[in-house]
């Protein structure tokens, strides 16, 4: 039981270290057992230092830093036993454009092996996708339409919205 747990724990940790280093260059994040001698007597902490300096207290971390740390944990868990497809709904809500770009690139790489279906409101994320599915509603009725990137530009600018 303990062996099985430690095996998975170490796998998640290995993936998390690698992924966080991609999402937060120069930084590091990893899991820590609160009770290394008896894992089940404690929980699992995350130690994160986004800029590679001293570990940041979780309370003081910014919304985006917590988001990147949490996303690294999520992707790491997925990588331990990958599913053939993933649906991620607005995981980029608290990321600045540069970080959205890093997550988009990670998803783009992973999507060579596993299918990703990503709901996003962020152009930086959307621009990285291979296939764009536009959802719209008229009088409360939803429908979809295949879009290419030129359509997207037209849709966003015709609504008088400057591109982000």
């Amino acid at each position: 039981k303990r062996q099985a747990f430690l095996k998975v724990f170490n796998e998640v940790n290995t993936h998390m270290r690698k992924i966080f280093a991609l999402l937060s260059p120069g930084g590091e994040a990893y899991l820590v057992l609160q009770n290394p001698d008896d894992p089940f007597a404690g929980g699992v902490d995350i130690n994160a230092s986004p800029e590679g300096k001293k570990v940041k207290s979780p309370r003081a971390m910014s919304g985006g830093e917590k988001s990147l740390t949490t996303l690294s944990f999520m992707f790491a868990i997925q990588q331990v036993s990958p599913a053939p497809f993933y649906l991620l709904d607005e995981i980029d809500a608290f990321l600045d454009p540069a970080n959205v770009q890093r997550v988009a690139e990670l998803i783009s790489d992973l999507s060579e092996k596993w299918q990703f279906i990503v709901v996003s409101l962020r152009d930086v994320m959307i621009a990285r996708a291979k296939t764009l599915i536009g959802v719209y509603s008229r009088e409360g009725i939803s429908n979809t339409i295949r879009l290419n990137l030129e359509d997207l530009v037209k849709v966003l600018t015709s609504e008088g919205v400057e591109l982000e």
Partner: protein
Amino acid sequence: VFVEKLVLRNFKSFGPRKVTINFTKGFNAIVGPNGSGKSNVADALLFVLGNLSSKTLRAETFSGLIYDGPHGKPTSASVSLVFDNSNREMLIDADEVVIGRDVLSNGRGRYKLQGRTVTRWQIIDFLDTANIHLDGFNIVQQGLIAQLAQMDPLERRKIIERMA
């Protein structure tokens, strides 16, 4: 194996006509205005994969998943999920594997696999062999990342335990 398409019939805002959403391998992005129906697509996936909590799908009861519009409410809703199984990763000798689920106004419903009515457990076991698990992290709903970010260390350990 990957998701080839989703066919929605009277499911939430996708009614009263049938709507077919086509996906490709790789990186798909679902885009559109607030309230257009993007997260309803995620709910459709969770529904057809056997989710048992209507509140998770943002409906008071399962009958609340049936399209409710100005011209009265249909008697049933259904979702069909078509997998492209050309690589035979799924243990069925067919290029397309179809999982279906419907729900009636009285809240009852059926599951189907390749057109045959089956039990929910048969769907769950079959998906298991393709490494698709409802409580894995392969469908990440809107807001889950923020919830995960608040997670306490004991819950985090339980997530890892369940994977072991």
